[in-house]
């Protein structure tokens, strides 16, 4: 960093936040510097999003004060914060699935023609400009947001924040659903913003990523600010040490089991739809961890959903443990030995109205009966066993699942899948939005699962992760498998080339 202490713009002083009995923030004092990219990191549930919600008016602190330009301010609502030039990209997308891209961007602050009417044409034009700035000029501003893949939705959310004349832009994991290409574009935009003296607060779990863009880094742990340092004076090891409180021996555990018979054999699978899949063939062997890399829209989610039976294939065969599974329903595939941890745990994984225990047992509850009736004891035993196995941090088995942090919610869904005793575990972006510690745990779980003679097929958009965890990597682009590497042959360059060569994004860029 250049000489002289940077100038603080937005300051949180002694901010606390209690949710009922949960202390999400404990008198945190945090300063975001003017015209800098201020990076926030920390484990899941460390309180990062909570602080950002408070700084953007979406939540009220239990104690402490907020200073903007050295002046104490009260941010009673998102409107208040917006009026003061504070914009935010929320971690959970807050979009209107029923409205167009342009309308999403201008919801609540529509451009007007005359005093009364919405100026749709101007909105479309401005939306198009912003999309172009994000490298998405092929996107139609009239497209309905609910029809977009999650990555493009995230870009719309980003675009919305960029439309405002903001002094402070808070970005809470804006890249969790983006692939490296869009991340590059986004970083260019952030560099621009920095030029324009905009203060950026950036939250991410992708260590290699934010090191490229951040000026300052702040580490949170258990609702406390534990470290605050200029990025140039830190390295990855330092950050992980601050986060986890110990040395990162190894982030990812590599599977080292011997491979055996073919457990999953997929032949010529084709799936119609918005993101179609064409003639995919693949195998997963016992003891093997197979990674699937690809860009947004490559069709990986469609592939695993089809394998799991929640999406219908038009052609192709799926053979599990040598037995063809022709029925193609979720029940049949589950019985055959497949289990899926879905990509979007909020939408496809958790039942928010149920307790942690009931969520864990959801798929296997029929096994825990005596004389047709559920046996409370067996339920409690089974669930708590899994909680211990996976080291899920919960207040209690009867707690609401929504009260857990993201990583722990992910483990709940994983526990449910493991309880079905699958022979091949399908994981769609299992590490999205979870912290390094949890990532390492999930990698270890995958390895352990493979060591028991089972197979793993996991999808990931992070190069480092696929390379580190997979024995074999398949690359998907435009619904086809375009390349295959072994752990020995795989390189970042090869993956990028194979995934981009035929990708939608590359073609249109």
């Amino acid at each position, binding site marked *: 960093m250049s000489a002289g202490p940077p100038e603080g713009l937005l300051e949180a002083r002694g901010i606390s936040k209690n949710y009922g009995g949960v202390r999400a923030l404990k008198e945190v004092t945090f300063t975001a510097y003017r015209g800098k990219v201020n990076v926030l990191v920390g484990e899941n549930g460390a309180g990062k999003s909570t602080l950002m919600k408070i700084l953007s008016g979406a939540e009220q602190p239990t104690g402490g004060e907020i200073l903007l330009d050295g002046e104490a301010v009260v941010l009673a609502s998102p409107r208040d914060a917006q009026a003061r030039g504070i914009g935010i990209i929320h971690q959970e997308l*807050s979009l209107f699935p*029923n*409205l167009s891209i342009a309308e999403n961007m201008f919801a609540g*602050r529509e451009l007007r023609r005359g005093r009364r009417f919405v100026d749709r044409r101007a909105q479309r*034009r401005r*939306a198009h400009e912003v999309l172009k700035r994000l490298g998405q000029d092929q996107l*139609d501003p*009239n*497209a309905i947001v609910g029809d977009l893949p999650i990555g493009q939705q995230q870009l719309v959310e980003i675009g919305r924040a960029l439309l405002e004349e903001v002094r402070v832009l808070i970005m809470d994991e804006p890249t969790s659903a983006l692939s490296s290409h869009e991340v590059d574009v986004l970083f260019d935009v952030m560099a621009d913003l920095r030029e324009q003296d905009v203060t950026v607060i950036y939250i991410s779990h992708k260590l290699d990523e934010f090191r490229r863009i951040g000026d300052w880094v702040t580490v949170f742990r258990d609702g406390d600010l534990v470290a605050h340092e200029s990025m140039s004076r830190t390295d990855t090891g330092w950050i992980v040490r601050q986060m986890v409180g110990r040395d990162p021996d190894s982030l990812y555990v590599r599977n080292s089991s011997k491979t055996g018979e073919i457990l999953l054999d997929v032949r010529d699978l084709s799936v119609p739809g918005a993101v179609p899949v064409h003639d995919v063939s693949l195998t997963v062997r016992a003891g093997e961890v197979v990674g699937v890399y690809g860009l947004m829209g490559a069709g990986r989610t469609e592939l695993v959903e089809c394998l799991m039976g929640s999406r219908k294939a038009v052609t192709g065969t799926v053979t599990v443990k040598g037995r063809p599974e022709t029925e193609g329903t979720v029940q049949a595939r589950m019985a055959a030995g497949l289990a899926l941890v879905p990509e979007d745990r909020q939408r496809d994984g958790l039942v928010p109205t149920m307790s942690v225990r009931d969520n864990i047992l959801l798929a296997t509850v029929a096994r825990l009966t005596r004389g047709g009736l559920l046996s409370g004891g067996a339920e409690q035993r089974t669930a708590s066993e899994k909680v211990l196995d996976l080291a899920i941090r919960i207040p209690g088995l009867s707690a609401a699942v929504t009260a857990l942090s993201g990583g722990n919610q992910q483990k709940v869904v994983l526990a449910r899948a493991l309880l079905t005793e699958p022979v091949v575990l399908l994981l769609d972006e299992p590490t999205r939005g979870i912290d390094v510690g949890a990532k390492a745990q999930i990698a270890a779980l995958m390895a352990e699962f493979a060591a028991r003679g089972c197979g793993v097929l996991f999808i990931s958009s992070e190069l480092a992760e696929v390379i580190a965890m997979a024995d074999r990597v398949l690359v998907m682009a435009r619904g086809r498998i375009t390349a295959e590497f072994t752990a020995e042959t795989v390189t970042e360059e090869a993956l990028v080339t194979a995934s981009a060569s035929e990708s939608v994004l590359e073609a249109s860029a």
Partner: protein
Amino acid sequence: MTETHVDAPATGAAAPPPGPARHPAPAKAALLLLRGRTLVVLVLLVVFFSAISSEYLTQSNLILMTKHVAINAILAIGVTFVILTGGIDLSVGSIAGLAGMVAGGLLFKGLNVPGGTVFFSAAVVILIGIAVGALVGAVNGLVITRFKVAPFIATLGMLYVARGLAQLHSNGGTYPDLSGTPARGNEGFHFIGVDSLLGIPVAVWIMIVVAAAAIVVTTKTPFGRRIFAVGGNERAAILAGIRVNRIKIAVYVISGACAALAGLLLTSELGAAYPDTATTYELNAIAAAVLGGTALSGGRGTVIGTVMGAFVIGFLSDGLVLVGVSTFWQSVVKGAVIVFAVITEQAQQRLQSSLTKRTS
């Protein structure tokens, strides 16, 4: 992959916004046909009934049926606003009844004030009636937003309360004669429900005006777009700085005012106000909105669709009466047509979304 990109024109100087996705011609035609699906059902009904009865497709019968439709259409337009935000309004029938009784009472026996009885002109009475509806709607909105009562329950409660108030207003009686007298200066109430302008009943004109206003509000104004936003994702709406509670209260006020207007039209047409006016009309109004493609989960729907839905229900009911179908069969046929029309709606949405996706 069949995706086609919307090409930006080569002369990209001031990049004009890309137009709506272009569909190949046949797909487009299919889509248009399906968008007008309620219209298709309507046309089928008309064809069917005019084949059975020569009186069905006469100008005078069409005008009459449209007049009958007007009442339900106005109710349904109001309800559409509510449904678009993800709510529901079961109290519209009762509000119509209450507004009719208030207006009837003012016309028939005036307002007792200290020192005598005041009579208002018919126009003022109409405004008071609508204000009563708006007020009841505001109560609905406040109960729903302030006390977080589910709209279904809040408006179900209001269904009973408003109906009870309507009955208490006259102690169960009917206000028999609403024609007013010159001495009282309150003549002319029949204008809205009985008279015609240019050969078209005033009630139909009123429906046209209400529908046009509703279309403009829902599609062209910030308020209208925010209604869709609230119905699409309430949390996101709050985070986007939209005053969600205000929007919600506003739609119940609109719904209440529309219901009151419908009640006044009924009362005017009847020339008498009785407390059971418009009983169970709420179900027809909601059915019209849903037939017209409004999603009960909120965020999706059009006013024009709702009006079409009201036409389908009205033209069906009147047609059944015209050809002399028994009451019992009327009930069966009506239920079946409502479900059938929605089934075609589902087919349409699936086809439409597959078409849009394939071609966008």
